[in-house]
């Protein structure tokens, strides 16, 4: 019976191929790609059918062909029928692979083509997009700046718009507060860098074909010293991929495991299948690579500091985010924005969704205070009182506030007694009983440049009032001052302040209306940190839910060696580096020291680089130039969309396409993992089928396809792809999510988006920390901390040893009670001073940029370069902006838009000056992470005019026993630029000799 059934199914497949050939040009085109014979059969050869593909024609017959090029074998007919009978059960398929019930033999390029062609018989007829008339189709996609409609005609992108909901989409939620009704609009918003995408897509800096550095010869002279100097020549994909695959094999065999490192940025173009945590992680695990281990980059102070006081390690030291929009609007009397500029940072992925809610803040006349050296975009929008502390001095301000509260009895003593521990130690430090120095407003005045009277006025206004503290762009931490050298102290101090005011009391919480909307958090769609198709259960959040919902092959990296990212250049050049792991599973996991090289592994000889942003986002980044020019790196490959940043240091460049040129699936602001329920930033949850709106430009290919084609050359393609395309993965993810409950696949891929209905008012999430305030079991919908981390009963108390907020951190006492950089009670210690401060008197802050998403959007001849607050054109070149106080500028003879040299011992950057009153004297401001590095002379040792201010920032980890960047404040001097390219760079890393070779 099974044999008959299997024979019939194989015949059915033959019919299906024939039918789809008749119906679809795309399928006919596909069939022209290869000439070979495939066969499907049972192991005992009792049933079989062959398919011969020849010049676009398919012939087929039953029986066994001994000379077939590829063979798909099922153990028995019964198994074949079970696996192939619709509806296909994905788990059964995966289990069959794991149990060796089927096998695939033959060259990878043919097996992978055959399985994907079989899949294509199912997908080729799918219809995408909405016909708008006049030959225009409206597709949907997702950018880091929000969801978009793409209007396309004749394979050309005409326009990008945010999404206006149609009459069938659900109504958003409503909040009643203080007699007013608040309801967000029926549309999505978009961040500026999302609106910029058409120019990014069509950028003249797009990489359109594979390239090789002209003086790189894998079989001869490699000339690593000329990386960043020599030009490139075009090569074919086959040449490029053969070379990359060949080098992978050679390096593994010559040097052993660990010799290949993979380094990606912190972000990617959007899409759960193509994301680095998905496709690249599977690739890393398939090949076996040394991972470049990320520091918790936007969370630094919270992870290394705050988590010891209030837990939250799985949120990287930040806190619960539920229900705070409604609570703030109903209860709060004041919001303190402390290094918090949500209008400038768009909640990272939150578009301008929070902006309309903060407009309500104005309507309700809730008092607002901004603490930031820069009169930031949110201060500009919201108004209120601006306090401008000297950059990196905020911990002193926090301590002075605590001093006033204690002195004047303005804190919640019951809460401190019942819900916290260690207050007496904090009290003694603040009041000077410990070190003889009372941390009074007068003490803080010279540290912060704030007047003592203002600090006192703020403390009095805050104390015993219902106040929301907004720390960082998200309001619960994230970005801002946690990234400078006192960031850990700042984050820790803020937790102590909130503990004194009764965190979790109605109206007393963390937030700025950026997170915590009443969307339905119980509706499941995976975030990107859940790892997509990576199968990686170790380095992604996949094991929590996605692995079960979207069964797939697990993958594991056999190379356990890792390089702490902050020390990547030192690891390559000096051959050693040490750091600490970012691992959120417990508070104590951050005490795991990692050393490179790991015993028994090879040092890194090859770097596989995804994107090229580190040179502008990492501190003291001239180090990266030296790293690339080191002969320790035998081979560097760059897989990138644009020719900028580090792609200009590669030996081989593989051109990746954007997410508008490949299919994918995703949800807006769905991060998952460390930023669980990021969708509470939104007014409406929106899931997107990311249409392939246009064909890949030039010869560019999606990351998934590039990885697949390298894997084909390593015999790994079936393992990497599971025999399917990225489109098929998108369908699998749809099926694994809750989306089928509200929309059919057919409608979803046609319309491109679906709005997930909001939560009913009576079922909304409870307010963060309120359970803690009321000493109840934890009731917010987050699966953290892990069960074994509860000290009392499950769900009672928080992750700390006492289960309470600890002014004196038990975890730090256990780890190193005498660490002067991170003592159990937070202490003030500001490293921005001394002789260096006399030489370089300006404190430069480098917050996240507003108009680009890190490097995405900047330069590339894109639209945002025209924005007066992003770059300024002087003599035909668009210069990065440095903001400087008007009096400081006048003293230096600097006028508006003069070209100036921002410099210190590490390097020099030419910027256009923006003379302003939005900074106090002594402070200067320029965004971190521009896209381009343009040294005017010798790379690594001359003036840069691209605008990389991170050339000047301190590389020192905030604490030695951590892996914590502290580069958002640096000491610099600014002077009118003399037009010279030379600048003496003091570096511990020597530059090798160079002989430039011109580009062809």
């Amino acid at each position, binding site marked *: 019976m099974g044999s008959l059934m299997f024979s019939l199914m194989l015949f059915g497949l033959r019919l299906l191929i024939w039918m789809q050939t008749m119906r679809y040009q795309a399928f006919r085109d596909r069939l022209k790609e290869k000439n070979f014979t495939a066969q499907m059969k049972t192991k005992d050869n009792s049933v079989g059918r062959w398919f011969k593909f020849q010049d676009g024609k398919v012939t087929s017959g039953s029986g066994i062909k001994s000379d077939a090029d590829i063979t798909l074998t099922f153990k028995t007919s019964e198994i074949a029928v079970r696996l192939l009978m619709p509806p296909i059960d994905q788990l059964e398929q995966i289990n069959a692979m794991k149990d060796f019930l089927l096998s695939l033999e033959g060259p990878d390029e043919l097996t992978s083509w055959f399985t994907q062609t079989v899949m294509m018989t199912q997908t080729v007829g799918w219809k995408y997009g909405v016909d708008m008339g006049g030959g225009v189709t409206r597709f949907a996609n997702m950018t880091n700046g929000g969801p978009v409609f793409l209007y396309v005609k004749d394979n050309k992108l005409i*326009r990008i718009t945010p999404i206006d909901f149609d009459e069938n989409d659900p109504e958003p939620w409503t909040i009643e507060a203080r007699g007013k009704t608040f309801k967000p609009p029926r549309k999505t918003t978009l961040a*500026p860098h999302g*609106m910029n995408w058409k120019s990014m897509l*069509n950028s003249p800096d797009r990489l359109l074909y594979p390239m090789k550095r002209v003086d790189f010869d894998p079989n001869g002279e490699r000339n690593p010293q000329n990386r960043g100097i020599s030009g490139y020549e075009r090569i074919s994909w086959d040449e490029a991929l053969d070379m990359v695959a060949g080098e992978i094999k050679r390096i593994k065999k010559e040097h052993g495991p660990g010799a290949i490192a993979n380094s990606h940025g912190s972000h990617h173009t959007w899409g759960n299948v193509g994301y680095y945590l998905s496709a690249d992680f599977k690739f890393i695990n398939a090949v076996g690579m040394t991972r470049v281990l990320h520091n918790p980059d936007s969370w630094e102070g919270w992870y290394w500091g705050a988590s010891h006081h209030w837990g939250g390690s799985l949120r990287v030291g930040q806190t619960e985010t539920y229900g705070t929009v409604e609570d703030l609007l109903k209860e709060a009397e004041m919001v303190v924005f402390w290094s918090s500029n949500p*209008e400038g940072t768009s909640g990272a992925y939150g578009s301008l969704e929070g*902006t309309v809610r903060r*407009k309500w803040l104005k309507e309700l006349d809730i008092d607002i205070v901004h603490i930031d050296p820069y009169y930031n975009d949110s201060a500009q929008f919201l108004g209120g*009182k601006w306090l401008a502390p000297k950059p990196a001095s905020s911990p002193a301000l926090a301590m002075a506030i605590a001093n006033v509260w204690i002195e004047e009895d303005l804190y919640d003593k019951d809460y401190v007694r019942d819900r916290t521990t260690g207050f007496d130690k904090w009290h003694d430090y603040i009041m000077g009983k410990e070190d003889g120095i009372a941390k009074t407003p007068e003490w803080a005045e010279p540290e912060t440049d704030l007047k003592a*009277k203002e600090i*006192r006025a703020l403390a009095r206004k805050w104390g015993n009032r219902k106040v929301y503290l907004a720390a960082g762009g998200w309001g619960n931490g994230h970005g801002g001052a946690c990234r400078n050298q006192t960031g850990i102290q700042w984050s820790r101090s803020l937790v102590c302040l909130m503990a004194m005011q009764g965190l979790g009391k109605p109206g007393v919480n963390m937030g700025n209306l950026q997170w915590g909307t009443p969307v339905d958090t119980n509706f499941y769609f995976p975030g990107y940190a859940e790892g997509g198709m990576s199968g990686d259960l170790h380095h992604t959040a996949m094991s929590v839910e996605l692995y079960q919902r979207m069964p797939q092959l697990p993958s594991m990296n056999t190379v356990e060696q890792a390089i702490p990212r902050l020390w990547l250049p030192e690891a390559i050049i000096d051959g050693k580096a040490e750091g600490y792991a970012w691992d959120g599973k417990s508070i104590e996991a951050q005490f795991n020291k990692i050393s490179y090289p790991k015993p028994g592994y090879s040092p890194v000889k090859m770097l596989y680089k995804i994107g090229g942003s580190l040179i502008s986002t990492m501190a003291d980044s001239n180090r990266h130039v030296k790293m690339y020019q080191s002969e320790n790196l035998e081979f560097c490959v760059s897989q990138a969309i644009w020719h900028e940043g580090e792609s200009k240091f590669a030996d081989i460049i593989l051109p990746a396409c954007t997410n508008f040129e490949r299919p994918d699936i995703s949800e807006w602001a769905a991060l998952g993992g460390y930023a669980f329920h990021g969708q509470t930033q939104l007014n409406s949850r929106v899931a997107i089928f990311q249409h392939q709106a246009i064909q890949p430009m030039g010869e560019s290919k999606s990351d998934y396809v590039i990885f697949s084609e390298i894997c084909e050359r390593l015999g790994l393609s079936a393992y990497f792809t599971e025999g399917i395309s990225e489109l098929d993965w998108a369908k699998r993810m749809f099926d694994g999510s809750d989306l089928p409950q509200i929309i059919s696949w057919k409608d979803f891929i046609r319309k491109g988006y679906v709005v997930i209905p909001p939560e009913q008012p009576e079922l909304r999430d409870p307010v963060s920390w309120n359970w803690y305030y009321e000493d109840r079991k934890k009731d917010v919908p987050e699966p953290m901390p892990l069960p074994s981390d509860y000290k009392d009963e499950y769900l009672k108390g928080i992750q700390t040893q006492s289960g309470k907020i600890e002014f004196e951190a038990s975890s730090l006492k256990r780890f190193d009670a005498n660490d002067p950089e991170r003592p159990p009670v937070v202490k003030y210690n500001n490293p921005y001073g001394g002789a260096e401060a006399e030489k370089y008197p300006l404190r430069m802050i480098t917050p996240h940029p507003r108009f680009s998403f890190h490097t995405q959007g900047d330069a590339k001849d894109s639209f945002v370069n025209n924005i007066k607050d992003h770059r300024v054109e002087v003599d035909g070149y668009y210069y990065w902006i440095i903001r400087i106080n008007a009096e400081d500028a006048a003293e230096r003879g600097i006028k508006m838009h003069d070209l100036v040299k921002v410099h210190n011992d590490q390097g020099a950057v030419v910027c256009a000056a923006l003379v302003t009153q939005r900074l106090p004297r002594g402070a200067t401001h320029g965004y971190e992470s521009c896209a381009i590095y343009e040294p005017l002379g010798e790379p690594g040792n001359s003036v840069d005019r691209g605008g990389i201010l991170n050339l000047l920032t301190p590389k020192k980890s905030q604490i030695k026993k951590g892996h914590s960047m502290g580069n958002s404040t640096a000491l610099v001097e600014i002077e009118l630029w003399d037009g010279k390219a030379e600048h003496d760079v003091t570096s511990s890393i020597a530059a090798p000799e160079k002989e430039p070779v011109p580009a062809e």
Partner: protein
Amino acid sequence: MSKWNLIIDLENCTNCNMCVLACQDEHVDNTFPGYAEEMPKHGSRWIEIMRKERGQAPMIDVAYLPVMCQHCDDAPCIKAAENDAISKRDDGIVIIDPVKAKGQKQLVESCPYGAIWWNDDLQLPQHWIFDAHLLDDGWKQPRAASVCATEAIFAKKVDDAEMAKIAEAEGLEVLSPEHGTKPRVYYKNLYRYNKCFIGGSVAAENNGTADCVKDASVKLLKGSDVIAEATTDVFGDFKFDRLDENSGGYKVEITADGFGPKSVDVELGESVTLGDIYL
């Protein structure tokens, strides 16, 4: 007859530049025959955002003013155009004909708002067309408005009498009315761009400790007339806004319980932050 108007509220403009970017997205690389030729990728600012900082750190105000073609009812550009190259549509929108206007560089100078831009490649004067091509196609708002998260920019299609009522009720103004061109673009809270303020912080010392003085009464005098009054907040701050630039001498008088009166003379050019005033 209902006509298009644009209302821009400075209070809600955050300088996000979405309107600017949407305009580039719509017009760079796109030609809309009869409406507009493509916009140059750089150098043209059909929508331009002007920045105004007022006062001195740490008491300042920053406002942004989006400026574009004002679609004037008495448009000087129409008069300056040869060959009827510029026309006024029945719905109030002004359109520079991309064919007839070719070579007419004088039109750039004719606009008192600087809102006509010269496209050197095409030898064409160009402007923000209110996205007339989209409105004609059934769109409800021009793109600059539909991408604005705060509704700082909003288009309204009403008859002129109704618009006059709205302008009156909401305190809308036109930009530089002295040009007399009857713009169809209206601004709200324009004072944040074209007026100025006098502000300061009141403090006092008690036993060697300085403190902010809350609830001090502050009067602003022009000559002997009290023209405004304020009360200090917890930071001792006060601010008198909507004053004319270069409007001459003022006196600020401060009284507070337990302190003698204090006064400060101000010669007002642009906005001034007086800093700390100790009683």
